């Protein structure tokens, strides 16, 4: 009924602190706005030159000065979605194991190991991927698949091609390894917050461990689980060095599962140093950065709607 009226700060210290806090909040907004403006203004020449076809063209020709965003955007989305598909079940399994099945003395070391994995710098993942995973893929996995499934009549064509070892699939694997720690740690922390009384009453009714997980724990923690997955997706979308080493750096959409490709982050990392200031290529790269920003924004909006609809249900 009565609402509290904000009192005027009476002490100097309070006034200064309030001002600093307000400044910090505004600073974040200003920084975000600044980044968006720089990307948009820098990418404007490319948008003006190519129009909407910039988003649908798979041409990337520095000699003819025509650029299109389709290949990097496809690569970014394909690697991120593939990585999520591989990472979420594994992360869920890790969180489930750590909270329900593992013996108590085992939980601390594994939990710490997961957090350490999250702290490994991404370029280390890139180097590990390039020097360990890529040769294994190129010498054993890809030739095996190409020689066996690649020879089959209908689907064979999709599994053929030179065994580079790099490619969208390898990059998605490395990304999956990188985002598992984030998602698993978030899931585990949040699974542990479920009040024991809920679980015990479910067990009392005769539910199995899996039924408890499915009907009690996951609905209770849905918002945070989705948040953890979005965190992992955000990292996968923007990951640069790990992907650049293993994606194959090709400006074509692959027609085979092992084909090389490009992501927005990797094409910017490789082509930015050589782009002259004021050139159309630099404008195209900045435009690509703006598109990545827009993709992240859309992903965030989707996750918000998922949470809202989940909360209503």
């Amino acid at each position, binding site marked *: 009924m009565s609402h509290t009226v904000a009192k005027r700060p009476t002490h100097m210290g309070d006034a200064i602190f309030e001002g600093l806090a307000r400044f910090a909040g505004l600073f974040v907004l200003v920084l975000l706005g600044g980044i968006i403006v720089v990307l948009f203004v820098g990418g404007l020449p490319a948008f003006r030159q190519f129009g909407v076809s910039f988003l649908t063209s798979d*041409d*990337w*020709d*520095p*000699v*003819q000065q025509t650029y299109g965003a389709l290949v990097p955007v496809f690569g970014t989305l394909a690697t991120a979605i593939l990585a999520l598909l591989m990472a979420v079940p594994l992360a869920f399994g890790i969180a489930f194991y750590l909270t329900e099945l593992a013996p108590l003395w085992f939980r601390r070391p594994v939990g710490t190991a997961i957090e350490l994995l999250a702290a490994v710098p991404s370029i280390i993942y890139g180097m590990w991927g*390039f020097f360990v995973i*890529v*040769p294994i893929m*190129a*010498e054993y996995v890809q*030739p095996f698949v*190409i020689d066996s499934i690649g020879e089959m009549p209908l689907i064979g064509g999709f599994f*053929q*091609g*030179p*065994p*580079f*070892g*790099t*490619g969208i699939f390898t990059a998605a694997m490395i990304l999956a390894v990188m985002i598992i720690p984030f998602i698993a740690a978030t899931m585990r922390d949040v699974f542990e917050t479920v009040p024991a009384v809920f679980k015990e009453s479910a067990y009392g009714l005769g539910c199995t461990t899996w039924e408890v997980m499915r009907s009690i724990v996951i609905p209770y923690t849905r918002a945070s689980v989705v948040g953890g997955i979005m965190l992992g997706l955000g990292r996968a979308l923007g990951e640069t060095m790990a992907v*650049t*080493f293993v994606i*194959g*750096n*090709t*400006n074509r959409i692959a027609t085979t599962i092992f084909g*090389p490709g490009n992501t927005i982050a990797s094409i910017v990392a*490789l*082509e930015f*140093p*050589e*782009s*002259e*200031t004021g050139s159309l290529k630099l404008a195209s790269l900045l435009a690509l950065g703006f598109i990545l920003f827009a993709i992240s924004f859309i992903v965030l909006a989707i996750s918000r709607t998922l949470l809202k609809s989940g909360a209503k249900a």
Partner: protein
Amino acid sequence: MTMKIALSALTLGLATMAGAQAQQITGAGATFPAPVYTKWGEAAKAATGLELNYQAIGSGGGQNQILQRTVDFGASDAPMSAEKLEAGKLLQFPTVMGAVVIIVNLPDVGMNELKISGEMLADIYAGKITKWNDPKIVEMNKSAKLPNLAIAPVYRADGSGTTFVFASYLSAVSTDWKDKVGAATSVKWPAGAGAKGNDGVSATVHNTRGGIGYVEYAFASQNKLTTIQLRNKAGHFVKPEMASFQAAAASGDWANAKNFAVDLIDRMGDTSWPIVSATFIELPKDPKDPIRSANVMKFFDWAYKNGSALAVNLEYVPLPETVQAAVRSAWHTQIVSPDGKPVY
């Protein structure tokens, strides 16, 4: 008392730093000559006290940096066009010549055993020839064991002068390549996968069964990669070795080359290797810091006089004496300090 000590220590420290800075020169650019520049830098430091800081970020990056004057000199395998040199007020001069060779990864094929022609190489990189046992390749290599393996072409994903040299060669031997793709530090490759740097290309070819790539000769010889023979303009198959590079370099028409940008691609000559190129340095004609600019010229002058043995050791071809003299006179006449006097 402590203040005085602290102050004098600070000034001494700054003075030594300033003294050290005065002897440092920074450059950025091509990975092609990076091994020889690094070796020259080490030797020059002992002999002249000049310290070279060279970043191998690729020819495109080197050109960009010197146009923005963030480094003392830029290094590029692709010669800059005359208009760009005019607009950027840069002087371009060559340092050494080197060769681009082709490396392959085929299980039963030995060093310099495989023979292909320039047009076939262009077709491989255009994605027209896709298997190693293609009839055209088999016909040229009757004695080699060519498997039913997909060809995996590897190219430079970063902006590279090595790409410029290789793509110039492909444009010279295949009109189809010239029309569809062209030559630049970065082109639209119709087939294959990219890797970063000369070392990235050799690592990728090494990892990929059936791989083929182009690298600078020093990388191939020092990492003992399997190279192939190419058919040159005179119709002979030549091996990539020092003698064939020198034959190509000797046929260069330096006198008529504008801004020293001589064309050594696909030269006539029975024993010439077809993919040879000089590598260039770009220096500002109006240096803001004449001392640093003079130090750069002092470094390269020392390298011309004393660095030839090191260059040959690393499998590069040194410049002819006449060209070195022409470069020195260009330094003297074209690079002037703000008060109008020649810097070196």
